[in-house]
């Protein structure tokens, strides 16, 4: 019997996606790597602020870097500026790039495909688990950096990107919204990680692939090249929050960024699913 025969609709049980999803989450929370990344996201901002407090210099090459000693709300925005450069592709790929390839690594594809779960259900459950990890990582890093800033520096008003003064409460709102704005491209990189994971069947390639793509896109954005291509890069939406931090906010980059991220997500997931469906597991 071939593995394909297991995909017959008659064998499709109800609630399969949920089972796969919960099982994947259980596997993820048991991995030390996943726990380490989660702890790093929460604690690294505190270490960053403590390191800054021991010196007079400021990271002035990053937006809001000049203000890190003056208001705690500058901290989450500086971290966001750093993390968008290379951090989010790496953090989300730690799980997304591994979640399919680990079955290859352990040689467990035949086993899970005989557990009366279709490939569609396994694919959906694994993708949902990777996306959940991505959201959790962004939420932890955002919460960690806002808490680090407010607790260790204070909640003074923030000087926005147009020089206007933003009062404390509104500044906290803007910091939260800015972190929300990086979720779409981060999920786009999750989808890219999933595609790499399925296509390469190798965890290391699945994790480094999206990071390399992210770095190449950053490189392209820094050279004086065609602007149209830059608008279509998945790293450009990581900067979309800049538009929020002004007395006269502009949302065009945000809308465009969401569309670009959605396009990358759909294309990568569709390609990944097609590869998984067409794969012949009987060859081992």
């Amino acid at each position, binding site marked *: 019997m071939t593995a394909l025969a297991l995909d017959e609709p008659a064998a499709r049980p109800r609630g399969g996606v949920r089972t796969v999803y919960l099982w994947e989450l259980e596997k993820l929370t048991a991995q030390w790597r996943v726990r380490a990344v989660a702890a790093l996201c929460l604690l690294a901002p505190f270490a960053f602020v403590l390191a800054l407090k021991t010196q007079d210099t400021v990271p*002035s090459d990053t*937006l*809001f870097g*000049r*203000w890190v*000693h*003056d208001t705690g709300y500058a901290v989450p925005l500086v971290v966001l500026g750093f993390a968008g450069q290379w951090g989010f592709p790496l953090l989300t790929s730690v799980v997304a790039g591994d979640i399919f390839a680990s079955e290859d690594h352990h040689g467990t594809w035949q086993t899970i495909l005989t557990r009366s779960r279709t490939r569609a259900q396994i694919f959906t459950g694994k993708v949902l688990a990777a996306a959940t990890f991505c959201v959790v990582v962004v939420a932890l890093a955002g919460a960690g950096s806002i808490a680090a800033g407010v607790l260790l520096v204070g909640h003074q008003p923030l*000087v926005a*990107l*147009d*020089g*206007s*003064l933003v009062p404390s409460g509104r500044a906290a709102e803007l910091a939260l919204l800015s972190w929300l704005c990086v979720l779409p491209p981060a999920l786009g990189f999750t989808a890219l990680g999933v595609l790499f994971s399925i*296509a390469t069947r190798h965890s290391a390639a699945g994790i480094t692939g999206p990071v390399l793509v992210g770095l190449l896109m950053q490189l392209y*954005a*820094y050279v*004086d*090249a*065609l*602007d*149209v*291509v*830059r*608008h*279509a890069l998945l790293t*450009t939406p990581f*900067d979309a929050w*800049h*538009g929020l*931090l*002004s007395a006269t906010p*502009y949302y*065009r*980059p945000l809308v*465009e960024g969401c569309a670009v991220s959605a396009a990358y997500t759909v294309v990568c997931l569709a*390609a990944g699913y*097609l*590869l998984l469906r*067409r*794969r012949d597991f009987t060859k081992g």
Partner: protein
Amino acid sequence: MNRTVARAALAAAALVLLAGTAGCGGSDITSGRLERALGPTFRNLFVLQQTELHGTDNAPSPDTWANCAKAGRASGGSGPGDDWVCLVHWPAPSGITQPIAYEVSVRPTGCYTAQGPASLVGQQRIQGADGHQHTNPLYEFDGCFDTA
């Protein structure tokens, strides 16, 4: 499966080529956009600096005028680079408003860093009215603008 991958690669290459040929219409970074962002930002930061220095803002507030030009090679006065120069109206402590020049570095993302003449606008840290050291908002500042 290899054929699928090849097809996908071909489609991606075609897309990039298409985007490339459609993108020959000039840069997103123009002097007008930079002026409209930098002028009001300078005005706001000047008010902030005066409040830091004197406790209250009773100096004359400058207008939002700015005039930016890109030096260097013939770039048609647009495009990212660190060779932008912007003039703004600075009300000197004597009461006379004079134009001063900021050296501006503009990145392709639409964010810029402007560095002012420290002899006029002050050093990086300034002594505030409250006796504490403050970050001088006018010494160097960042800003962003919409590039479309």
